[in-house]
């Protein structure tokens, strides 16, 4: 259960958006294990944006500069193959994608497209870097979660993830 940061008698001063965002992030696999105080600080760094179906969040080969968390709606992750786009995964509320942008400067390895109207939270890399400079714990927890996710993907996909037929579960961090 996510504790309320303010005492009950100060409820009138509470920001409903922030009260909603931090517990939401706590449920995302990438941020599991972060203490409430750090999660609340992290939550302030996110931008929120509405997307319409069919809109491309980013394309394969684009420069990767941010992490996205799905708040509402669905996002389809595809990769271009000679036979056409291959769907790697479909993400829903709480799922994060584009997380590799937080650790390297390589271009995006897949395309993210909105399939149902939705809202995404966007965390820019330099904001994350600025935050972890003063809070090594955030870096440790997020990197541990990311490594865990990578390990899960690696165990699930004995064949190369970008080969058609490798299975939807083969889609790893982008």
């Amino acid at each position, binding site marked *: 259960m996510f504790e*309320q*940061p*303010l005492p009950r008698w100060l409820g009138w*001063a*509470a*920001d409903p958006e*922030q*009260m909603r965002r*931090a517990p939401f992030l706590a449920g995302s696999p990438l941020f599991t294990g972060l203490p409430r*105080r750090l999660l*609340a*600080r992290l*939550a*302030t760094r996110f*931008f*929120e*944006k*509405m*997307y319409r179906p069919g*809109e*491309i*969040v*980013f*394309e*394969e*080969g*684009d*420069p*990767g*500069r*941010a992490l996205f968390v799905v708040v509402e709606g669905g996002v389809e992750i595809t990769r271009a193959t000679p036979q056409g786009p291959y769907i790697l995964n479909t993400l829903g509320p709480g799922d994060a994608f584009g997380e590799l942008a937080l650790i390297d400067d390589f*271009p995006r390895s897949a395309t993210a497209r*909105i399939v149902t109207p939705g809202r995404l939270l*966007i965390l*820019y*890399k*330099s*904001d994350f870097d*600025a935050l972890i400079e003063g809070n090594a714990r955030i870096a440790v927890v997020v990197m541990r979660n990311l490594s865990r996710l990578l390990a899960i993907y690696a165990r699930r996909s004995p064949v190369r993830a970008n080969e058609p037929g490798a299975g939807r579960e083969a889609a790893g961090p982008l």
Partner: protein
Amino acid sequence: MTPSRLLVWGGLAALAWLARGLILPVFLAAALAYLLSPAVAWADALAIRRSVAVGALFAGIIAVLVVGGFLLGPGMLAEGGALMERMPALARQIDVGLDAVVRELAESAPALRRLLPEGGAWVQRFVLNRGPGEPGDLFEHVGHLFLLVILVPFFAFFLLRDMHRLIAVAMDRLPPQHVETSVAVWREVNGVIGRYIRGVVLDGLVVGALAALGLWAARVPYPLLLGAFAGLANVVPFVGPLLSAAAAGLVVVLTPGQGLAGVGRVVLLFLVIKVLDDTIIQPFTIGRSVHLHPALLLGSVVVGSHALGVLGMIIAVPVATVLQETVRLLLEHRRVLARRDRRRRPESLVA
């Protein structure tokens, strides 16, 4: 462009022209908002409503100003009053010195006589007797100052409270394919400006305090006023420290009993402060926000001074840094996209 759109843009341009007097208050308000934004971010992390946090912050600032006014105000007022009282005598002293220099120059180099200014008592004529030309001028200056004192906190309050909403609206209007790079550029620009403004203010406070303490220890008159001036002038790169040293040196020259040794002490003090500022204080305060080549830094200050005077010199460094960061990000974006497009092209087309 359709006629209606042309009309809208024309109307906006006319409105901007009419509101040009608000540029300075808005600029100062933005600087104040950047200065205070870490406190608001801290309140955000505690899930405190923006309006409550910003209101409490401003109440706190007013309380600090009132307490600070009680503690430092009497001393600064006394120094200011004493300086104003001594001003006519000081001006006469400076004029006598200047007259002597001009006479000496005219005698030693008669060819220069035509180039030298005529008359005398320059300080008395141009500083002391330079009262407002018309009665309306005085009210105009006081009115401008009053407007600044009212408008700057007013705009800063709303910038701090509503900026995140404005950004959210702008984000929703952006085409999705530009969001990531736009956020990248905005966050870099925001970070650079914020760190620079907070760094410059902290740097000015430390330099001002060091100058006031040093001048007080060296028994130079008006240490509080000169320290405050040194802190304020420090905002102007290169020229500021020179101006504050010159002001303190002038006060020493005009103070009986201080002599050349006093001037030497002041020069040494400001030299030590400058070295400390460059080697220890600035790396901690401004260091991380500015990554400009020294030549580019100097060039930006010169260009800023030509374009907008003192204001241009103050904003030159952050503007140049922001431009550099924006260009770097956009070029990087273009390079990555070009590489992607090359990879997508059929092999037969690749040279």
